[in-house]
């Protein structure tokens, strides 16, 4: 199961739970799992099946480039971060 770290600003939906183990082979499956446990979280994470503007997903330290289709491994660590660009 992947370990999903809940951003502090979403913990109003998770009763302050900081991280959870979720089963899923893609980010979409992880998102569904999260929504099932913590209703409302899917809306924060994204819209229309994509990841919300300004949010980036880090899977094992790499920024996912395939959006909700990003593969997730059984031991993966997932973080939700602000999206960054560069100069």
């Amino acid at each position, binding site marked *: 199961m992947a370990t999903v770290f809940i*951003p502090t*600003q*979403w913990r109003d939906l998770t009763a302050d739970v900081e991280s959870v183990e979720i089963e899923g082979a893609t980010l979409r499956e992880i998102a569904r799992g999260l929504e099932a446990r913590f209703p409302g979280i899917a809306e924060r*994470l994204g819209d229309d099946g994509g990841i919300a*503007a*300004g949010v980036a997903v880090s899977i094992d330290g*790499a920024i996912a*480039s395939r959006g909700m289709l990003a593969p997730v491994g059984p031991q993966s660590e997932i973080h939700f971060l602000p999206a960054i*660009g*560069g100069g």
Partner: protein
Amino acid sequence: MAQAESHPRKYKVIGTRPVRHDGADKVTGRAIYGADLRLNGMVHGKILRSPHAHAVIKSIDTSAAAKLPGVVAVTTSADFPDLQDKIADLGEGAVNLAHLGANVLAHGKALYKGHAVAAVAATSPHVAQEALSLIKVEYEPLPAVTWVLDAMKDDAPLLHDDVYTKSMGKKADKPSNIAAHIHFEKGDVEDAFAGSDLVVEREFKTASVHQGYIEPHVSTALWNQDGHLTIWTSTQGSFTARQQTAELLQVPISQVTVVPCEIGGGFGGKIAVYLEPVAAMLSRKCGRPVKMVMSRDEVFEATGPTPGSSMRVKIGATKDGKLTAGEAWLAYDAGAFPGGVIGPGCMCVFSCYEFPAARVDGYDVLDNKPKTQAYRAPGATQAAFACESVIDELAEKLGIDPIEFRLKNAAKEGTRRVDGPVYPRVGFIETLEAAKASDHWKSPLEGKNRGRGIASGYWFNIGLKSSAAANVNPDGTVSLLEGSTDIGGTRTSVAMQLAETLGITAEAVHPKVVDTDSVGYTDVTGGSRVTFATGLAAYEVGRDILRQMCERAAILWECDAAEVESVDGEFKTKDKRMTFAELAGKLSQTGGPVVGRATVNPEGPTNGFGTHIVDVEVDPDTAKVTVLRYTAIQDAGKAIHPSYVEGQMQGGAVQGIGWALNEEYVFDGEGRMANASYLDYRMPTALDVPHIDTIIVEVPNPAHPYGVRGVGETPIVPPPAAMAVAVYHATGVRMQELPMSPPKLWAAMQK
């Protein structure tokens, strides 16, 4: 075929210093930059800009301007499609198209002095300029706000009534100038501070600064009678320029070709479009190519800058010098539209160190400045100024050498950052060790009113998408097509990686930056990504070519392709060998040309750390700071072309020195920029800086076949903090404000 060796021990091309491929054109004046383009029938566009920092635009009357002889087209935002609430993913990040469009030409409200209001095209730039004075705009001025903390107040003038504070996807219930709130937390912060032997908390502020590229923004558009739009422009990303323009005009992306011209500097400021859609609209109206060039004051007043900031940083440590806890509160202005660089600011503020517990709050704040843009390690320099200043003060109070203090707490492989992810192999410790061993650090600084400072900094390398293709020529050379616009020599650093992969010389690769119809999608030149990601694409192109060439050799030798090996520019089997050039000359006999291609989207994180040392002397009477000696140390992973790596380090350091000492946006009482010229903006001249010594540390990036880490951005991060520490040791004053310009430093020294 045999696997190409992914980590050759000895490189033939990488690490050498060939003359750049575009060099001769650039030293003879032949290179074609955006403003050098001339097309038949070309006319010239100019933009009318708001004289007010904040005003309702009640009406715009362009009739008199349209009648001026020589004027061929006039436009305002009324000519553009309505783009309410559309979000476009631009690769480097998403953008609200209504905001982007309203920045290009104001919709109903002018939000900063210099905001574009209308545009004219005419047969000469002088006529276009005259026509602007005939456009009548009725404004209702509103109170303006240009300081981030003022803009956050409840009673501040509100810039937009449809912007609500967003917190990681969560939206507030009333409009606010605070467009976003970011929060990270790791561990029990209160507990950790309580267990600290020493806590230092300081407040900092920094002024807005501009990227300062010497070439003003320029674009030429031709909306042809067949409906196809071609744009020649100076941009960090031709594909993102194409997408932004297509979205703003609501035309299919296939209808737009962006031809990147040579670009005269960008540093993050030439990613967003300004002129492209306007030139396109004017061209559609007059049926001729329209060229638009900004003047220098327009560049200052309507593009860039990077945020001004207010910051509070609190850090705790134990007596023996272990960091216990950190807390940062960062407010950065976004300018007139949401989406500043607070995100990376928050991610970078504590990124050099291992913090058992820490909390970061960040705010993206609207105010009446041009929409802020990325500037070299966007958001990180301000944050490092605050964090590194506190780190230095802690080290001093604990009586620990500042390098030793950093070494005790340095981020390393396995360190969990405050924002969550864990570092892979990084080279921060190596930069500190190199600093400690440097001649600069070991040489005592003597003399009155002098001080030495040291500071470190961090920046990501973003990966993103890069494509490339290459044709093998019969003479054994290879033509490389790429989509990364070349701002600082990347044609060469990318070509060198292809040359290394193929085992040929750097000169045998002919790189070309081509238009959006001629190469696969490639993201912006930014985020320290080109040598890393487009270089990776070139490597993959090389592998593709080698695979095909092995097959061709097998045809010639009438053997199985698996028996052919390619090593160091030669193809061989047990008993036969042929050079790359020999085989290239025989391709037509074996089925025709070989074209290699690749597209990559590396996700692997790369991270660049740097440590800078500076000696200054402060005139005790005037408070003027003179930089005596400077050394920049950085982990480059593997320096492909060391001269250009050094160049990035030197250029970034000097930009950082400018940020530290004199550069700033000065606003008058009405929120208008008072120093919109190079004369009064005061970027460093050759006479203001010493030679910048460089030490390149190489801790190979495990996520790149040649170990590359991008180097472009990190070098601007440490300088302001290092300068502030040096000024402290020279004067006894810890400056918590940028710039540390003479009047400000003098006032502080009087206290």
